[in-house]
Structure formats: structure tokens, C-alpha cells
């Protein structure tokens, strides 16, 4: 079973690596964006699926890191990737630490709403102060580059270079989280989700664990924010809006909570469903009302796939073998 998962994951990575060879600039741009969403979805999966903390403020880490990427870059010169990327991730992690430190005092729906409140504060910080350039946002004129000893390794201004850098970041985030979840730290986080009381009774101080999960999640979401700012070349307050936090949450639920692959599958399913229902070739005049199709698809997935898209495989194998489904 484990090998099957590994093979299917590798096939997925290979498909993504070969994708630019068979598609044009639109396809490359779409998948670049989707992979960035997948990175953010992975960061949220660490909080929601692993630790059981439903954070409704992921857009804040994502957006603040994006703003940091633009603000920290020099005006007329390329920033160096070597320090800009860690700096942006640090911004995401720092705000996550701040948000986590305070909001972890609350539980359940109250927790969801406090994380939303802190995210909205970040939104109004960039929306209403001169720092963020208001509703219009600010532009990143020169993209960062990576150099070693004067040789240009990577110029993120080129779509192909960016595509493979984003793919590399996605794989790195996935592998990092997969290893993390197998470590003692990751097991402890899972323990917090299943039964926090019992974790405390066995001698774990759960608060620092949850806080560390927040910081890591903020850093990974910050990676996504950095990549998004570099891809589009500008940032605006919409990156920090609660709609984005909600969309990321929807992606990981759609994919199936509790699995890293679920987060990635959810992000791709969400993006591809959008493109499908927007396509005039398939839906003609109704393509204008693509949200209707997306909404119905989401409702159908809740009704038919209670464990998310990741559960489809298991559902099928059990149907075929006619064995009872394990809950």
C-alpha cells in the first residue's frame, strides 16, 4: 500500500515536470498558480488536518509574505533570492507566532473566529495604511534572482524558471512535511488532534507544540506568498482577504483532511473545476455562471464523498473487492 502511494506521488511529480513540454504559456501560468495554492494548502493541512487547529487566517501569512517580497526588494535592482526568500518566510512565521500565541487561548469556533480577526487586522494594515499602497496594491518591478559568485543560477522573471522553482518548492514542502509528520514532533501534533487531554496527561506540554506548528505553517504559507508576488509582479490587499483563507480551507476539505496528498489534490481539483466550469467550449453561455457549477460540484462532493477526494480510491477498491468499508 505504501509503495502504491509512493508510486502515484512520483507519477504526479513527473507529470508536473513534463507539463510545460505539452502546453503553452496559459497552461504553464495556470499550473504555476495552482502549485502555489497547493503549497498554501499544505501549510494549512499541518494546522487543520494534523494538529486539529482550524485556522481561518492563512491568507494573512500568505499575503504579508507577498507584501514583504515587494517591500524588501530594491526598486531598480534584483533582490537576491538567498536572503529575500528566508526573510519572507520569516515574516509569515512571525505573524503566525503572534496570531497563534494569542488565539490558542480559545477553542472550537471561537478559535476559528479569533484567527479570522487577526487575519482581518493584517488585511486592514495593508489596506488602510500608506505602507501597503491601498486597494491598488504595489508593484514588484524587478524579480529576484539567485546567483553564486556572479554566475546567474536562476532568474525568476522567466516563466519556465519560475515554474520549476515553484514545482521544486512544492516537492520540498511536501517532503519536509511528510518527514515532519513521521518524527516525534509530528506524532505529538497528531496526538494533540486526537486527544489533547491525554497528551497532557502523558507529560507533553501541548501549547509549545501547537505554537511551533503555527510558526511552521506560517513559514510555508509565506513561501507561497513570496512565490505568488514574484509570479504576478504585484500584490494587493485581496491576497489577505478572508475569501482566500476560506478558499484554502475549502481546498483541503475537498481533498480530504488528514492526508498531505489530500491538500495537493484538493488544490488541483479546486483550480481545475474552476477552469472546467469557466470553459465556454464545454458549457457555452453558462460558462459565465461558472460559480453555479463549482457550487453544485462542492455540494455533490460533500454528499457523496464524506472523506474527500482522497477517499475515492479506497471507495473504489472496496467496491471492487466487495469488502465492507472501514470507518
Amino acid at each position, binding site marked *: 500500500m505504501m509503495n502504491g502511494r509512493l508510486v502515484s506521488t512520483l507519477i504526479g511529480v513527473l507529470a508536473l515536470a513534463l507539463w510545460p513540454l505539452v502546453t503553452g504559456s496559459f497552461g504553464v501560468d495556470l499550473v504555476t498558480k495552482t502549485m502555489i495554492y497547493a503549497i498554501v494548502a499544505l501549510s494549512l493541512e499541518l494546522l*487543520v488536518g494534523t494538529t486539529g487547529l*482550524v485556522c481561518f487566517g492563512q491568507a494573512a501569512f500568505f499575503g504579508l509574505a507577498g507584501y514583504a517580497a515587494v517591500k524588501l526588494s530594491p526598486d531598480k535592482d534584483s533582490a537576491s533570492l538567498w536572503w529575500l526568500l528566508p526573510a519572507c518566510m520569516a515574516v509569515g512565521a512571525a505573524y503566525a507566532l503572534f496570531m497563534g500565541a*494569542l488565539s490558542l*487561548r*480559545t*477553542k472550537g*469556533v*471561537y478559535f476559528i*473566529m*479569533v484567527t*479570522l*480577526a*487577526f487575519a*482581518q*487586522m493584517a488585511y*486592514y*494594515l495593508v*489596506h*488602510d*495604511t500608506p505602507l501597503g499602497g491601498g486597494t491598488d496594491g504595489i508593484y514588484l518591478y524587478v524579480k529576484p534572482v539567485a546567483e553564486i559568485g556572479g554566475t546567474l543560477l536562476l532568474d525568476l522573471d522567466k516563466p519556465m524558471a519560475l515554474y520549476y522553482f515553484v514545482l521544486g518548492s512544492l516537492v520540498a514542502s511536501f517532503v519536509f512535511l511528510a518527514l515532519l509528520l513521521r518524527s516525534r514532533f509530528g506524532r505529538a501534533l497528531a496526538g494533540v488532534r486526537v486527544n489533547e487531554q491525554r497528551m497532557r496527561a502523558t507529560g507533553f506540554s501541548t501549547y509549545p507544540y501547537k505554537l511551533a506548528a503555527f510558526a511552521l505553517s506560517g513559514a510555508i504559507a509565506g513561501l507561497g506568498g513570496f512565490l505568488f508576488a514574484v509570479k504576478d509582479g504585484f500584490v494587493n490587499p485581496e491576497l489577505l482577504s*478572508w*475569501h482566500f483563507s*476560506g478558499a484554502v*480551507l*475549502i481546498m483541503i*476539505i*475537498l481533498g480530504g*483532511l488528514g492526508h498531505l496528498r489530500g491538500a495537493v489534490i484538493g488544490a488541483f481539483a479546486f483550480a481545475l473545476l474552476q477552469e472546467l466550469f469557466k470553459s465556454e467550449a464545454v458549457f457555452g453561455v453558462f460558462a459565465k*455562471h461558472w*460559480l*453555479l457549477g*463549482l*457550487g*453544485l*460540484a*462542492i*455540494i455533490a*462532493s*460533500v*454528499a457523496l464523498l*464524506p472523506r474527500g477526494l482522497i477517499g475515492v480510491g479506497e471507495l473504489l477498491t472496496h467496491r471492487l473487492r466487495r469488502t465492507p468499508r472501514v470507518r
Partner: protein
Amino acid sequence: MDLATFLVQCLNSLQYGLLLFLVASGLTLIFGIMGVINLAHGSFYMIGAYMAYALAPLVGGGFFVTLLLGLVLAVLLGYVLEWAFFSFLYQREHLQQVLMTYGLILVFEELRSIVVGDDVHGVKPPDWLGGSIALGDLMTYPVYRLFISAVCLALAAFMWFVLARTRLGMTIRAGASNREMVQSLGIDIQFLYRVVFAAGVAIAVLAGMVAAPVSSVYPGMGNQVLIICFVVVVIGGIGSIRGALLAALLIGFVDTFGKVVFPQAAGVLVYVLMALILLWKPDGLFKAGS
């Protein structure tokens, strides 16, 4: 700020707060009693506002006839929705409910776009409520806004009466604290839930219809009110009607006066308030059942 301006802002705060209370009360009832996080609740408010616009020509333009027809349709809508979509969500995890009701938001928003279109519309208040009264020497205050506050207050009183003083309210409160026990006493809990849900939808629709002449009717109005109503619900304490009333008035005053006194920071004030209150009282101001 002189006295007349202050008075006008107080009335505005009151009216905004009471309107929020109407929408939030349905949300907190549905959450407190059935344990369903209903993101689509803002859509009911939006549907109400659009009904006030679209139904009026059908019934000859009478404001109260439109209101009545809208209410009947809202109860039907709530009853059918509960039966078709929500009744199988009770046993599911909260996040599944979030996903489903998010899907419903998209569906309602697009159906609205298909049926009525994406334009912004105005709705006229009835003639006899269209005037304004003088406040001080220079200021006037529209009568219709006072009418909104009065409707909201009347409904709040009616809700209190039903929940606290009738047999139906008693079973609803009992159902909130222990579903199985109520069921084993021979009360049809499914029907009870359906009634509560329909009532919640009807109140939100009514709020939208009454608010339409003041706020105008525009796409996305439901989402705007949804988040602020969740803020009201958690500040007040989930499931507590009393808490929702107090929190809604608090938000109404903070938001309205915030816009006058600190226009640069008006948007964020409400969220700062919520964060402070929840850090001070992690279960909201009034815990349900207390």
C-alpha cells in the same frame, strides 16, 4: 461633534446593531440548537433584499404585501433546504458543514445572477414612511430608519416570548441541551429542527427585505453581512440570543462611531474588539444555557 450629530449617530448605531441582531439571531439559533455552521446564512439576507426588489412589481408594489409574500416564500425555502441539504449534515463534522454551505453560497449567488442579474438596485420605502423628522435646527432623520429599528425590536421581543414563554420554545431549548433526551420523551426532533431552521431563514430574509430600502440591493451583500454576523455570534456566545443582542448593539455602536471618529481605522475596530473580548472571555460574553 454636536448633540444633534451625536444623536443621529446613536440612532444609526442602534438601527445597524438591531439589523445585525436579526440576521445573527437566526445564525446563533441554528448553530446553538442544531450544531450546524451555516455559511449560507448571509445568502438568506441577500435573497430577502432581492425579493423586496423583485417581488414588488408582481404584487402591485405594496410594501407590506411584498413583505408578507417574501416571508411565506422564506419559510418554504427554509423548510425545503433543511429537508434536502441540512438534515443529513447533523452527524457530520463541522468542516463538512462548512464545505457544503460554502457550496450553497456559490449556488445562491449564481442563481441570483441568472434570475435577477448583477445590477445594483434601489428599493423605495412606502410613501408614508418616506419622510424625515427634524432633529435640532439643521439635521433630519429618515422615518424609515426608525421603522427598521421598531420592526427589529418587535421581532426581538416576539422571539424572546416564543423561546421563554411558550411550549414550543421550551422544547426548542430542551432540544438544544440534550437532543436524545428530548427525542426519547416522544418529541419529533426532526420536525422541531425543521421549524427552527425555517424560522432562522425567515428572520434573515425579513432582515434583508426591511434593510433593502436603506442599504440598496447589490451582489455580494450576503457575504459582507455573514462575517460580521459570525463576529456578533461569537462575541455574544454561541447559542445565546441575549448575547447576540448585546454583541450586535456593541458592534453597531463601535462600527458607526468608529467611522465618524477614526475613519482610517474603522474597518479593523470590530475585529480588534472581537479579539480583545475573546481573549478576555474565551467563550463569549454569555455562554449558551446560562
